[in-house]
C-alpha cells in the first residue's frame, strides 16, 4: 500500500508544505540561532579586543575561554532584576522586551542562500528598516522610564542620532534599489551574480556601513552608551536578564546590518568553490570583524561632531551619489 494514499499523511504533507509550517520552523531556527550567535559574537568581540590590546582575552572557562559567554549568560539569568524606585514601571518593564522584537523580526526576509529564506517579501528591505526604527522607541522608553539623568541623556542622544543616520542609510540603499528595481532580497542578490554592487556603488557601500554602525550604536558612534561619560547610557539602571536583552539586541542588530550590507553590496551568497550559505556567513562575519576592529581602534565622536558628520558629510554625499546613479541609469 502506498503510504501517501493515507488521508492523514496527505494532510501532514500538505501542512508541511504550507507557509505557516515554514514560518514556524524558520522562527524556531531564529529563536535558537540568535542567542547562540550573540554568545559567539560576544566571545569573538572579547577575543578580538584582547588581541588588539596585546592580551589573550577570556581564557579560563573551557579551552581558550570559549564557554565564557555561556557562563556569563547563566550568571545574568541568576541575577536579581532590580527595578529602581520612582521609575515608570510599565515602560521600564516593556523596553527590554520591545528591543528584541526588531532583532528577531529582522531575520525573516534575509536570504542567506537560494533556499534559505524564511519568507520572501516584496518589501523585504523596507521591513527591516521599519522594524529597526522600533528599537529606537524602546531605547527612548528605557532612558525615559529609568529616572536617571545619564539614561535620559543617552536616550535623547539615541533618538537624534538614529534620526540623523537613517537618512544616509536609506539614501545609500536607494541607490542600489533603483539599480535592481526591487525590494526583494533574493532578487537583489541575483542581480549581483556577475558583478557585486560594491563595484558599481563603492560610495554607497561605505556610507551604508558607516550609517549602520551608527544605527547599531557601535563605536565610534556609541554615544548612546558612552561609558566614560554616561556610565552605561540608556541601560544604566538595568540589571540581569533585562540588561542582557539590550546586549542581545545590539549584537543581533549588528548581524542584521552586516547581512543587509552583504545582500545589498557584497553579492549575498555568490562566490566560488563553497556553497552559498558559507559565502554568506564568511562575508557577514568579515564585516562584523571590521566593525569590531574599528571599535577597538577609534575613540568616540562628540555629539556635535556626530551630528555634523551625518548632516554635513554623509547626507550630501549620499544624495549626490543617488543623483548620479539615477542619471547614469537613465542615460544607459
Amino acid at each position, binding site marked *: 500500500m502506498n503510504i501517501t494514499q493515507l488521508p492523514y499523511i496527505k494532510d501532514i504533507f500538505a501542512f508541511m508544505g504550507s507557509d505557516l509550517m515554514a514560518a514556524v520552523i524558520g522562527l524556531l531556527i531564529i529563536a535558537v540561532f540568535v542567542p547562540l550567535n550573540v554568545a559567539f559574537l560576544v566571545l569573538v568581540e572579547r577575543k578580538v*579586543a584582547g588581541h588588539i590590546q596585546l592580551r589573550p582575552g577570556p581564557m579560563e572557562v573551557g579551552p581558550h575561554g570559549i564557554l565564557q559567554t555561556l557562563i556569563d549568560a547563566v550568571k545574568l539569568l541568576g541575577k536579581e532584576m532590580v527595578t529602581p524606585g520612582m521609575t515608570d514601571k510599565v515602560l521600564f518593564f516593556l523596553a527590554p522586551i520591545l528591543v528584541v522584537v526588531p532583532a528577531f523580526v529582522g531575520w525573516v526576509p534575509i536570504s542567506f542562500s537560494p533556499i534559505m529564506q524564511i519568507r520572501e517579501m516584496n518589501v523585504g528591505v523596507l521591513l527591516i528598516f521599519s522594524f529597526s526604527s522600533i528599537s529606537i522607541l524602546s531605547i527612548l522608553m528605557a532612558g525615559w522610564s529609568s529616572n536617571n539623568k545619564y539614561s535620559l541623556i543617552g536616550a535623547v542622544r539615541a533618538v537624534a542620532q538614529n534620526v540623523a543616520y537613517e537618512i544616509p542609510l536609506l539614501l545609500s540603499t536607494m541607490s542600489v534599489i533603483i539599480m535592481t528595481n526591487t525590494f526583494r532580497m533574493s532578487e537583489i542578490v541575483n542581480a549581483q551574480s556577475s558583478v557585486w554592487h560594491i563595484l558599481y556603488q563603492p560610495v554607497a557601500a561605505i556610507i551604508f556601513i558607516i550609517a549602520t554602525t551608527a544605527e547599531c550604536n557601535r563605536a565610534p558612534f556609541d554615544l548612546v552608551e558612552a*561609558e*566614560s*561619560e554616561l556610565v552605561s547610557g540608556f541601560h544604566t539602571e538595568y540589571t540581569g536578564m533585562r540588561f542582557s536583552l539590550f546586549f542581545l539586541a545590539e549584537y543581533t542588530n549588528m548581524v542584521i546590518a552586516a547581512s543587509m550590507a552583504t545582500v545589498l553590496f557584497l553579492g549575498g551568497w555568490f562566490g566560488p568553490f563553497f556553497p552559498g550559505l558559507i559565502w554568506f556567513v564568511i562575508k557577514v562575519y568579515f564585516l562584523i570583524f571590521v566593525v569590531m576592529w574599528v571599535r577597538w*581602534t*577609534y*575613540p*568616540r565622536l*562628540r555629539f556635535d561632531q556626530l551630528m555634523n558628520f551625518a548632516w554635513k558629510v554623509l547626507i550630501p554625499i549620499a544624495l549626490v551619489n543617488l543623483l548620479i546613479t539615477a542619471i547614469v541609469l537613465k542615460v544607459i
Partner: protein
Amino acid sequence: MLNIKTIDDATVNQRVYQLNLGPQHPSTHGVMHLLVTLDGEVVIKIEPIIGYSHRGHEKMAENRIYEQFLPNPARMDYLSGMIFNHGYCMAVEKLCGIEVPRRAEYIRVITSELNRIASHFIGAMDYAMGLGAITPFLWGWDDREQILDLLEGIAGSRLTYSYGRFGGVRNDIDQAFYNGTRRFIDRLRGRFWDYENLINQNIIFIKRSKGVGVISKEDALTYGVTGPSLRGSGVKYDVRKNEPYSAYPEFNFEIPTREAGDCLARYQVRMAEIEQSLNIIEQALDHLPPGPVRSKVPRFVTPPEGECYLTFESARGAVGFYIVSDGSRIPYRIKVRAPSFSNLFAMTKICPGHFLADVIAIFGSIDVTVPEIDR
C-alpha cells in the same frame, strides 16, 4: 557638615539641570565628585567637590617620627609614589643638613624618572580612554607594567614605594635592574611609532582634542597650574630646570612645551616628556658614579628647630613639602602643596561652554590623582 549639593526639587522643572558626575563614575579616576550644571549637553557651571578620599596624611605626620612617615608620601599620589618618597627624603635632608652620596642621587633620578614615565603613561592613556579609545590604555598599561616590574625588583613594591631613606636609598641597584632598564628604554623607543600611528594620527582623537579645554597662559598662572598642564599652555616652567634639585643639573634634557593650551597640547607634552625622561635615565645609567648609596645617618634623625620648604616636580606638577620642626623627633607640622589640587580647579574656569563629553576629556587631560587632592 559636608558641602554636598545634590539635585534639589527647584531645578527639576527647569531647562537647566544639575548632574552629579561621581563620586562613583567610570572616568573620575577614583572618588571624585563633579557637580555639573548643564543646559542640554552644554556645561554652564562645574564645581568639583573634594574630600571623599581624605585620609589625613598631614595630621598623621604630627603623630609619628620622621622615619615612620616615610611610607606615607607615596600614598598621597600613588601614581608617582617614588617621586614623592624621594621628595620627602630631600625635604628632611634639607632640614637636617644631611649629605647624600652622588650614586644615591643618580639612583633617585633613575627611579624617579621611571616612575614619571609610568605615571605619564597612565595620564596620557587614561585621557585617550576618556575619549572612548580603550586600546591605547591597555597598550600604555603594557609598557607601564615593565616599569613596575623593574621597580619591584629594587624597591620591593609595585606602586607605593618606600625606597628612599634619609641620606640615600635603601639598597643599591643590581645588574638585573641595570640591564632591564636598558632593555626597557630600547623597547619603549620602538613603541613610540605604534603610539604615533594608533593615537597621535587618529583623526577622531585629534578632532576631540584640538581646541578643547584651552587653558590660557594667564589662567594657568592665576590658578597655580603646574606640571604638564602648565607647559601645555606655553609656560616653560619645570622645577627640575628652574629650581634644580638632586642630580638634575648634571643631565642634559629639554622642557617640552606647547603653545596651544588645549587637551591635545597637554597630551603631547606628556608624551614628549616620556622621551625626555628616557634621555635622563640613559645619561644617568651611562655616568652612574661608584660609591655608597647611603651616607652615615643616625638611626633616628632629630632635626634642629626650624622650618624648610622643598619643592620638586612630580608627574603632575610642582609639589611642595613644608616641614616645621620643633627640635624633637616628631615633626611639628608637615604641609604638602599638591599640584592636582591647583590643576583641578582650573577646570572650573575652562569647562563652561563645553560639552559634557569634553568635561571628561579635560578632566583626563589635566590628569589629577584624587587621593593627592585630598591627602
